[in-house]
Structure formats: structure tokens, C-alpha cells
């Protein structure tokens, strides 16, 4: 007579989160990304509460209208991404390709605007280390119109928006790869996992920007 435990039937295989592995993997990765950006936001809160005198009012140094345009671009790219996904769910290859190309272009435009913003801010004298020597902003600060020192503000601004911009850049490159595969006809109505997984990443990056735009530029 074998041990009773050996006589019981084998356990049924668990079905996990009830989604396919690539999607589950992306969600777990996004969970780690949530913690990454939360760490940045946590540091930002500490730095800002710790040195409030280094922050200028919203829109004084940073170009809010320009970044509002960027916010508009990212929201548009999110809707084109989800339209691409909806298209391939219906088996619409032309729609998939059109919307993916639109997403890549709008995403690249976001990165382009951010590069322009950085170049503009640096030429004004807003550096991660503080005011640029002899810059326009340094002169304003000397006259007492701006905070005397902005090193903490500058470094937290460039760290947060820089990491976000890096994520968008990675997204654009990955999206270009998915678009290339879409033109090759790799995605079908039955199997379009790649489109959904890159879409999750892309919407997450949009979601992070919504939070960052508010706390970095508007508050």
C-alpha cells in the first residue's frame, strides 16, 4: 500500500493570470517601472520640500506651452497605438500599418520637441548643475528675479524628464521594429501579441508623462 499522498491525483495545472506569457511579462516589467518612477518622484518630493527656495513658479523657467504641445502629441500617439491594435483585432492590415507608422512619427516628434526644449533651456542657462556662467538666467537671478541657486531644481528636472524621454526613445525604436514586422505581415487577426505588448508599454509611458507633466511643470 503506497503512501496516501502518492495515490491522490496530480494537481491540476494552474492557469496563472489567465493571459499569455508575453503580456504577463510586460505587466510585471511595468510593475517594476512603476517602482522606478515612484523612486524618482519620491526623491523629487524630498528635494523640493527640502529646498523649496530653489524652485521658481511654474512657467517662469520651463516652457509650459511647448511641453503642453508635447503632452498633446503623446496623447495623440496613444490613441493611434490603440487604433492600430483595434485594427489588427479586426484583421485590418492596412489600418494596423497606417496607425503604427503614425505612432512612430508622433513618438519621434515628442522626442524631437524634448531635444529642442533641452537645447533651448541650456542656452538660456538652465543646467542640471544650476545656472550657466554668464547666461541670461544667471543675470536674472543676480537681479533677484529668480532663485539664487537652482542646482537641485535643475538636476531633478533633467533626471525625471530625461529618464522619461529615454523611455519614449526606447518605445519609438521598439515600435519601429513592430511596424517593420507589421509590413512583413507577421501579425494576424488571430495572433497579434507583439502589437498588444508594445502598446501596453507605450500607454504606460504616456501615463507616466501625464503624472510627470503635472508635478514637474504645473505644480
Amino acid at each position, binding site marked *: 500500500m503506497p503512501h496516501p499522498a502518492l495515490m491522490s491525483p496530480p494537481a491540476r495545472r494552474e492557469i*496563472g493570470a489567465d*493571459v*499569455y506569457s508575453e503580456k504577463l511579462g510586460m505587466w510585471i516589467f511595468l510593475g517594476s517601472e512603476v517602482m522606478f518612477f515612484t523612486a524618482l*518622484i519620491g526623491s523629487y518630493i524630498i528635494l523640493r520640500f527640502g529646498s523649496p527656495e530653489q524652485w521658481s513658479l511654474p512657467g517662469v523657467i520651463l516652457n509650459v506651452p511647448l511641453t503642453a504641445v508635447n503632452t498633446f502629441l503623446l496623447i495623440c500617439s*496613444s490613441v493611434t497605438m490603440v487604433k492600430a491594435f483595434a485594427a489588427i483585432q479586426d484583421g485590418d492590415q492596412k489600418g494596423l500599418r497606417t496607425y503604427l507608422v503614425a505612432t512612430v512619427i508622433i513618438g519621434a516628434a515628442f522626442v524631437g520637441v524634448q531635444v529642442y526644449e533641452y537645447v533651448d533651456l541650456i542656452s538660456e542657462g538652465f543646467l542640471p548643475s544650476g545656472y550657466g556662467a554668464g547666461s541670461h538666467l544667471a543675470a536674472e537671478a543676480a537681479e533677484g528675479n529668480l532663485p539664487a541657486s537652482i542646482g537641485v531644481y535643475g538636476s531633478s528636472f533633467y533626471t525625471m524628464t530625461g529618464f522619461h524621454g529615454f523611455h519614449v526613445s526606447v518605445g519609438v525604436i521598439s515600435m519601429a521594429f513592430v511596424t517593420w514586422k507589421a509590413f512583413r505581415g507577421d501579425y494576424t487577426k488571430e495572433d497579434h*501579441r507583439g502589437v498588444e505588448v508594445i502598446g501596453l508599454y507605450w*500607454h504606460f509611458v504616456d*501615463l507616466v508623462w*501625464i503624472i510627470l507633466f503635472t508635478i514637474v511643470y504645473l505644480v
Partner: protein
Amino acid sequence: MTDGQSHAHPNYWAIWAYLLILTVVELGIGFLPWSKEVQILVLLLLAIWKALLVALFFMHLKWEGNRMRIFAIAPLPLTIIIVVAVITEFVW
């Protein structure tokens, strides 16, 4: 491989318009004669509202099963702990 996606397509352009309207409202908050604290609170609530719209409709969490949703929201209590912890450093 279309699990959790058997619903009809929502009106994504309506969500897009919704997000844009909320963004315009955010940009307008700074011009209102409210105190700084109220403005910050309203801006943060609007940002969370927009983030929820993206997660529910664009990331399809509205139509996912409960197990998947738990995965998605699992890190959020940790973010709240971090943010509340660092803020309390300065409040008390």
C-alpha cells in the same frame, strides 16, 4: 491569442478628446484665483483621473480578468507608501 479582448471596440477618439479636455483644464487651473494648495490638489486629482482613463481604456484594464487586474494594481500600494512616507518627513 486575444484573451480578455472579446468586447466591442470602445470609442477611442472619445477617450482622446476627454484626455485633451482634461489637459486644457489642467493648464487653465493656474489662472484661477485659488490658493496654491487647492490648485496642487486639483491638478494631482486631474492627473490621476487622466492616468486612470489611459489604464482602463487604452491598456484595456476595464476588460481584463480579475487576476490580471491584481497584477496591474499590485505596485500601487507601494507607491502610496513611498509618497506618503517621504511627505510625512516634512509635514511632521
